[in-house]
């Protein structure tokens, strides 16, 4: 099926099997292999990308569902020559080891920070009607959809914190 998806700002015309997931379209068709396949079932978060600015698991979505959508992958966040502030923070804080979950963590964190800015609640939010304070517990809960088996969790919190500021 013919589908056009704007990926990292570029319109990409695809002709995909309806079965092709957004993740496999990115990895196998567009050769954007930064988004990772850790479980293929929405249970790890390694495939997290931003669709129209919102973080989702790209493994649990079909490419054909995204005709006309704006997708941002890790390749659109920054480059080796010009790391984004969050990428630099992950490097500085050693917020990864094997690196396989890292693109998903970074994309997830970008989406998460927008959700906080939009005052979306989490299960750590005690006052549902007030302004969200991004405490460490809020940050941890909101990043729990991204498993890191190397368990760089404290370092990931530190990296995101260094970009997000103190309990924004």
């Amino acid at each position, binding site marked *: 099926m013919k589908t056009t998806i704007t990926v990292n700002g570029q319109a990409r015309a695809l002709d995909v099997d309806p079965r092709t997931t957004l993740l496999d379209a990115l990895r196998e068709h567009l050769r954007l292999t930064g988004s990772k396949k850790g479980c293929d079932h929405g249970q790890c978060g390694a495939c997290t990308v931003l669709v129209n600015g919102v973080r989702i698991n790209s493994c649990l979505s079909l490419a054909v569902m995204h005709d006309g959508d704006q997708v941002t992958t890790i390749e659109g966040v920054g480059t*080796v020559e010009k790391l984004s502030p969050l990428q630099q923070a992950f490097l500085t804080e050693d917020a990864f080891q094997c690196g*396989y979950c890292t693109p998903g963590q970074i994309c997830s964190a970008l989406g998460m920070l927008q959700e906080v800015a939009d005052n979306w609640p989490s299960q750590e939010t005690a006052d549902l009607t007030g302004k969200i304070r991004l405490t460490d517990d809020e940050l941890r809960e909101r990043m729990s959809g991204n498993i890191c088996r190397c368990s760089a969790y404290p370092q990931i919190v530190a990296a995101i914190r260094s970009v997000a500021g103190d309990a924004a």
Partner: protein
Amino acid sequence: MSSVIDWENTPNPVKENRAGNIGKAVDRYEGPLKVTGTAPYAYEVEPPSPPAYGVLVSAPIAKGRITAVDIAAAQASPGVQLVWTYQNAPAQGPRPERYDFFTPSPRPALESDEVYYFGQQVAVVVADTLENAQAGAALVNLTFEDDAKAVTFHDHFAEAVQPPGESDVEIGDFEAAFAAAPVTVDDVWRTPLQNHCQMEPCATTAWWDGDQLTVHTSVQMVRVAQNSLAETLMMPHKSVRLLTRYVGGGFGGKGSFYEDLVLAALAARELGRPVKIALSRQQMMHGTVHRPATDLHVRLGATPDGKLTAMSLMTVTHCDRRGNFTEHASNFARNLYAAPNRLTGHRLIRLDLPVASAMRAPGEASGTLSLEVAMDELAEKLGMDPVELRILNEPPTDPETGKPFSIRQLVRCMREGAQLFGWDRRNPIPGRVRDGRWLVGLGMAAAIRGNFLLPAKASFTVDADGVITVKQGMTDIGTGTYTVLAQIAAETLGVPLADVRVEIGDSELPPAPGSGGQFGAATAGSAALDAGMNLRAAIAEIAVADPASPLFGGPSEDITFQDGVIAIANRSERLSDLIRRNRPEGLTAEGEVRPAADAGLWSSHTYGAHYVEVGVDTVTGEVRTRRMLGVFAAGRILNYKTARSQLTGGMIWGVGSALTEGNAVDPHYGSLINQDLASYLVPVQADIGELDAIMLDEVDDKANPMGIKGVGELGISGAGAAVANAIYNACGVRVRDYPITPDKLLAALMAKGL
């Protein structure tokens, strides 16, 4: 043969650390690639032409055989190019009777109609697209005959035997001393089967160029995998090039390799095009190795003032029917505490389960979950502080062999940890501290893990730009290998870190054993240091013999290497200038390390202490880790940033072991109940509160030429026990059947009337 004495007495640039590269919290060498998603893992490597996609088919029974094969529908499925079962798979080298980690041998795939465990790979389908391969795989129609099977560990204790070639270790008369002890602990702890759950599933991309095979795969050990693959394919070793440059987690589970590697290579040969195969997450659970369950019987006897008189840890564990692996969960107890009468050993049961093998800190990870809790129980019985009990039983020399310790700072780890954590605020009476719906408790445990050194080689090349390239058939599975090799090279040759390149993960490079057993940094790094020293000598020789060099005629042993400049006193030139004049094509030196002949004269380990605060919701039985601190002594630290990450990662694994991780075997089907990451629960971000690891200053000059030791496995040792002890301190209940899930804790609370 090298000697510990030489290591201790010979200065080297790593020990001297003049430029300060050693120990520095340097960012990961390959980090920019990983944070931008541009480090290609095995399935992502671009082959020379578009690949076909393979998908494996797994057995739905635990034991039996394939009685009928119908692949017609799969073959006819759109895009399918190849379907293999045991009936039509290519001939491969014969399987040896038993495997071991370090010995290459054929590992044939789809070798027969026999099924030895649930999830064994029994077919492969290769198609033009991944979607077509997956659809084709679902159409492979195999008929199985189900045999009677033995899969439940606790029902087969009568079949437990001594592991081959082993015997129990008894010092003194344990039974008599235990019977006579005025204060005792006698309990059994159970640990479940666990899965590695590396984030990157095992995967291979393979292609051929004539008779030459290139495979990119995800393994921890390059040389043994490459040799084994060649032997499986019945090819000369030199015709196979195996690369594994980025590995998305290993933890022991990629110490071996799986059908993705063999079948991608064979299918690529058959089809004349590149083929890539990855295991699914579900296939990772059964189709790769796991940590086996253990049953840990601890008996401690002590005097009323707390001196251990008797200590025993006996482990019962299991491996697969054709297996060769024992979870040596009792071994660490041989080195930890003083007690004149001691008994340790293992019993092994062979079951019709998937393959058991090493998982992060094999032995210690399971075993400490018993003894380090038993020590907490003993301390309570004695009315002693758990830290003081451990310190009282600190052995002056190795408690079993009497050998001197190379260095042992366990007491300092415990003391400093206690102070930094605020251990004095712990109420020794359980159940007294409440915070809202949580009862709060503190717990601690000791950590110990062995220190190992294996033979390895490395090469260093300096080019005409003064850039040093380290080459080694080593892996970086997230451990920091790239980074510490770069630091060693920079320090050894006196060049800026930016002028070092590291090439690893390639079978064409000088062989190193790979990553495992926390021997990686010491082994690979020591070989690298030797290569660096040899390159220094080669450079010096050229410099003093080159009339165009300011160093000409000088004493070569006086040459210093600093900031890319070589100098004798005030005569100097840039290293790049010397190389450009004399070796424009570059200058290479090789190096190696071997275990010291006299290394066995010392008892050498890494140590640590964990402190943890948990909350227990006594209404629901839920436990949350609130804060945790580990203090560790593991020799010289090459990189405080990557070493800390290794340690904190291990600690979090310990939290998982204590609270959430475990797989159960369905008794009827012989399969693991948790087949994915939604049901096998590794810790997530919200499970981990404030957590840190601190490393003591230490040099273990007897460990290797650099005085370093490993940290990759130390962090998990004892961590789960500290959590269990904190739970007890919070609510007064002990659960000895891990993981301590709400159902078990609630039952124990209710049994106590809580």
